[in-house]
């Protein structure tokens, strides 16, 4: 492999990795505060992409407005999911909430198949973002540069909310002890709803970015990215926003570089990622940047 090819792979990895990171920060936020593996995250992600499709292609709403509508729509869905499927299980064992999450995921996927059919849809890709250009020998599209920037801005904003605002304080407090937080006069349900709202909005943004990069919107599109982002979040250390970004980037780099260096083994691409995941967990059982969390049961 020559240097220019390596640079191309490097750019590709950055593009993919930051995309994983973007999905993972929403995942890790909900997980960090509620210890709930929100399997429906990938499905909210999918809904975000669908809303953009409907807004811009079906109803011809201008792009920027469509984006806002999609994020708001997905946020509303996230809140609804929390209210119906998670809130009644707040004091239940974690596995109950997990199964409920799997149920929600099944529901959203299949309701989408009923409502939107399984035919993949396209999204409008603004030329500005998609027209490839060459930087030396490396070719890339503007979107690939945008995604890391958006991810970092969102991650920074999220950190600000969690560490610099009252609501953030309440969230962190809930992540340690729900009952005590309630006694302190914090409205637990409202705070958790806010957590879900932010998480869903992040999922929707990620879904829209994903749909722009890989323009194929279908009901099961959230499954694989959700799965990968979940792994990225664990990889980086669940609950840690910076860890999620790092985990996403690492996953992107492992996937791309394993193909780049071992083209004959490209069929094993995902296996590389999983082997590394297991090894990292063995060396550092709480992920790259994770803190030791006491299990809440």
């Amino acid at each position, binding site marked *: 492999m020559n240097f220019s090819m390596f640079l191309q792979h490097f750019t590709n990895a950055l593009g993919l990795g930051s995309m994983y990171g973007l999905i993972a920060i929403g995942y890790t936020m909900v997980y960090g505060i509620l210890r709930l593996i929100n399997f429906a995250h990938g499905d909210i992600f999918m809904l975000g992409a669908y809303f953009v499709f409907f807004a811009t292609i079906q109803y011809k709403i201008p792009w920027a407005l469509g984006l806002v509508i999609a994020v708001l729509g997905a946020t509303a869905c996230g809140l609804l999911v929390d209210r119906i499927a998670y809130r009644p*299980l707040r004091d239940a064992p974690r596995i109950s909430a997990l*199964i409920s999450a*799997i*149920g929600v995921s099944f529901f959203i996927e299949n*309701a989408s198949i*009923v409502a939107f059919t399984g035919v993949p849809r396209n999204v409008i890709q603004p030329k500005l973002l998609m027209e490839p250009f060459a930087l030396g020998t490396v070719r890339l599209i503007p979107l690939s540069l945008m995604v890391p920037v958006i991810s970092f801005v969102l991650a920074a904003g999220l950190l600000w909310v969690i560490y610099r605002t009252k609501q953030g304080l309440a969230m962190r407090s809930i992540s340690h002890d729900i009952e005590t937080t309630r006694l302190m006069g914090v409205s637990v349900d409202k705070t958790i709803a806010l957590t879900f709202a932010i998480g869903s909005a992040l999922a929707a943004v990620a879904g829209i970015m994903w749909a722009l990069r890989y323009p194929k919107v279908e009901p099961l599109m959230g499954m694989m990215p959700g799965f990968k982002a979940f792994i990225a979040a664990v990889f980086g250390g669940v609950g840690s926003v910076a860890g999620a970004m790092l985990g996403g980037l690492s996953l992107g780099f492992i996937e791309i570089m394993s193909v780049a260096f071992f083209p004959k083994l490209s069929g094993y691409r995902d*296996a590389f990622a999983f082997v590394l995941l*297991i090894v990292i*967990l*063995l060396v550092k059982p709480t992920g790259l940047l994770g803190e030791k969390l006491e299990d809440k049961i």
Partner: protein
Amino acid sequence: MSAERGAKKVRNRFLTVLAIISFAVFLQQAPNLLDGYKIRIMNMIAINAILGLSLNLIYGMAGMFSLGHAGFMAVGAYVSALLILTPAQKTAMWILDPIAPWLLGVHAPFLISILAAGLAAAFFGWLISMPVLRLGGDYLGIATLGFSEILRILITNLTPITNGPLGLKGIPAHTNLRVSYGILLVTLFCTVRLMKSNFGNVIKAVRDDETAARTMGINTFQTRVLAFTIGCFGAGVGGALMGNIITTIDPRMFTINQTYNTLMIVVIGGLGSITGSVVGSVLVTVMLEWLRFVENPIMIGSTQLFLSGKPGMRMVIFSLLLIGVIIFRREGVMGMKEFSWDRLFSFFSRQRGDAA
């Protein structure tokens, strides 16, 4: 008092034997009473119950969150199928890469292949449990999930051994009611014995409070490894039975969705309850099949019922039922409880008391 208890014990044992015998008679007669579709569903119930029990042992009883069941099932299904298939079948099937020569002549009868399937899955379970069981909680879930995916990717890519994505076909349909329920009975018996033994108590102690268990001198790590390995054995057997009823397998059958399916059965039935896994298996398997009718147009008079006849509706309703069960009965149908004749009798006498 003790005489009464003794009499009860005799009675219960008698009832158990009677129940088993009458069920055996029913199974014997089933082919005459039921059509092939219902028999297939009954077989699937038994297989799902075996899978549920094995996951329940790992998760419900030993408290290890494992998402790797599908991978161990895959190992079992492939080992069993590769042992059963004849050399002629194998030569005809490997149309892309030739089959590994050493594999061609390997052959074993059905029951041996099931045993081998369990052992192979147990071996892989043991292999991964050594490093990853040091992890706790969700991290263990992820690590096992990762391992299960690695197994699946290996099966997909190792064409000379597994025929890759083309999968295996023409596996004789050895799984019939006698086999599946026979193995289920053995599984049930072993699980009950295991949980009643000292080892069962140790497992629960490790689940409930690992530190306390360790202070009492229990080698908690070894206990968990053993429980995990036994659970994987069950997964392998279940996978093998599954392959022998579908009669064709490929790597895509064993994705995370398969694990979710089993997890659902365990949790709906009641985490930690042996009876629960069986009940959960009946509920989930029957529901999924029975709900099919909503995907055919339902006519009320001459108008079609709204949303009926739409593909996907079945899973929509199923998922709503799933969420409903979890919300309204979060501990599952059985909770941590087990079925016992005493409980059944006291239930009925209470009912009668209410009526009077």
